[in-house]
């Protein structure tokens, strides 16, 4: 096992895989955060008809099996699909798209509940002190930062460990769309359980590092 881990770590192909894993997951997370936080905050703060329906949709989205998302994205990007002309299928772009769709409801729904958890009195007070609408939203978000971090961490965990969708739309092409999870599936299928375990350990360590980093940021922002 230790041998396998060393073997895996010494492999230059692994670096490639790790980089791609981070690039795909990172980009998907940034996009999902950039859209998900404002949407989640808006839904959480505003009061409008149909809010319950939007909430329901977001919560359901959290439970969407990644393979299903993968299948949708596949159908969309297939040469005979609506966006076939983009030629995105079996490229990292397709993987980013799929992961963004998986991460978005997680970020939005958890942001929403974090924002809703902030004492409504706070916003009223701030508004009373003459803050603009935008300023008061910022303050609420700051107040909800722990929940926000949790949202991002949850989304990160959800997509970095996801395999069904990236396998389907990425194709697990060596040196091009192979990420840690699909590499693990491949070595399992090849019966190389040692290598699979080693890759799993690498994934775990990377996730650990990334989460520690996020928590560190949260602590500093306090």
């Amino acid at each position, binding site marked *: 096992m230790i041998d396998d881990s060393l073997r895996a770590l010494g492999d230059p192909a692994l670096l490639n895989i790790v980089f791609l894993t981070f690039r795909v997951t990172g980009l998907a997370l*940034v996009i999902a955060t950039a859209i998900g936080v404002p949407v989640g905050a808006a839904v959480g703060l505003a009061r409008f008809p149909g809010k319950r329906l939007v909430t329901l949709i977001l919560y359901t989205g959290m439970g969407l099996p990644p393979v299903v998302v993968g299948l949708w994205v596949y159908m969309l990007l*297939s*040469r005979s699909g609506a966006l076939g002309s983009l030629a995105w299928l079996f490229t*990292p*772009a397709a993987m980013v798209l799929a992961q963004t769709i998986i991460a978005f409801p997680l970020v939005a729904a958890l942001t929403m509940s974090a924002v809703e958890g902030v004492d409504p009195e706070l916003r009223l007070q701030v508004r009373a002190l003459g803050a603009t609408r935008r300023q008061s939203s910022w303050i609420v978000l700051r107040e909800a930062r722990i929940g926000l971090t949790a949202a991002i961490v949850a989304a990160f965990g959800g997509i970095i460990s996801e395999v069904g969708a990236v396998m389907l739309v990425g194709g697990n*092409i060596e040196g091009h769309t192979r990420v840690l999870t699909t590499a693990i599936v491949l070595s399992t*299928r090849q019966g190389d359980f040692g290598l699979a375990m080693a890759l799993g350990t690498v994934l775990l360590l990377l996730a650990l590092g990334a989460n520690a980093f996020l928590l560190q940021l949260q602590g*500093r922002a306090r």
Partner: protein
Amino acid sequence: MMRTGTVVACSAAAVLVAVAAGPIEPGRVAASSQQKVLRLATTTSTVDTGLLADILPDFQARCGCRVDVVAVGTGQAIELGKRGDADVLLVHSPEQEAAFMKEGHGIRRDDVMYNDFVIVGPTGDPAGVAKASSARDAFRSIARAAAAFASRGDRSGTHTKERAIWKSAGIDPAEEGPQRPSWYLSVGQGMGETLAFANEKQAYALADRATWTSMQGRLPSLRRLFGGGSGDENPDRDLRNQYSVIVIDQARHPGVKAALGLQFADWLLSKPTQARIAAFGRDSAGRSLFYADSDEYKATDRVRVESGGRSRTFTLGEIAKLRSTTLSGVEYIGVKKGRLGRHAWTGVSLTDLLLALDPGIASKSRSTSTIEVVSSDGWTASFTWHELFGSVSRGEGLYRAKGCNECHGLKAEGTRPEGKRPAPKLLGETYPVGDTTAMIRSGTAQHEGITAYTADRLSDADLAAILGWLARPNQAGTDDVFVVPPPRRIAMLAYERDGRPMTGRDGLIQLVVGFDEFASRYSHWVSEIRVRY
């Protein structure tokens, strides 16, 4: 408000750092569109065994392109092809492939290689599979013993094969739905996972030999129980696992790179690549994982001739040194490709080649011999001694020239080909000319469905001559000698077509028969000539 740099912004910045570590699509798309990319959808076994990693670098260097390999189950690979999401397929499920071609998704499908399936099971072998005489038999005994059986259950090529064997055994454990027997375990996963599962569960399984060979060491409680020690020793031909390459049709699926796909197929079928496929695994695993099987690979450049107790192997170079003959205007009919136009053929006459080895063969005392020309794919074309060294009555000559021998046998002795209608012995029988002509012309009665013999292809006079010979085979007078014009009265081993050396796909050495009008005695990849008494 400096510290209002909220968590969100910070975290976003953090991931941006990770992202900045390298460029990503669509930048990458732009960069890679400069380089040609061929997308190959294939079954997992070609990747899992390491075959593609071994052979693909050579192609990528030649085409200056990148091959993106998408390894999935055969079912999914074929689906990718149907949607135009792959340029070429390398798969192993002949039935699904045939349907795929019929639906018009592919331009070309060629055999590439094969390996075979083996039946593995617990070392104790409770069902007694090791004693089975065929795969079907083995499956029957598993069902009888109700021993655990792990099925891929994923519509892969292996799963399709497994279902076919169950079907031929008259049992269908997978189809029984709610009454599915509890010993039949449909795993729904790849070969590796299924074998690992069987190993844990002490279950039987059907596995492709390549995967089994490469994983064997990690499966202590499993043993190969049926299928022999290598592909050549496999006692059941039904266990053959045929891989083919399919190039997707650009006309049907715009955007598919058919030209590059064709280049890939040609490369895959070429002799050097095939030799590499055949060698793959021999060095590391000690035995071949795949057997090369392309037409081009099977084309031999040497012929072994065996006659009168002597034998000698002639290389193409040696054959070319013998006196050559040219035969022009002979229609070339490929077995799979149909009529391909008229050509001039250059080669050595079959009689010259035989005489070079065995001068005594022309003597009358040898006139009961049959000369067999065998291709490397097993196809055999036969001649009577009289056809090559003696003279043949008009009726007998026409009998073979018109291809009656194809079904009724070289000497009209009748044949019972496996899986086809047996054709009766005709020699020595008297058939009424009028009724028989009507029957053969119309393709009805006994000749139901045989519609080739229209009046312009077989005249009444010719048919009467054939029937005359059948009725009185030994009474052909000398005036009745088969009257094919001399230049066409030749069977030759050709090595040039229209002045150019032949390619592997057509066979480097080909048998061309000047006096036969139908394709029954043309053959590709000639590898052996035997004279039987």
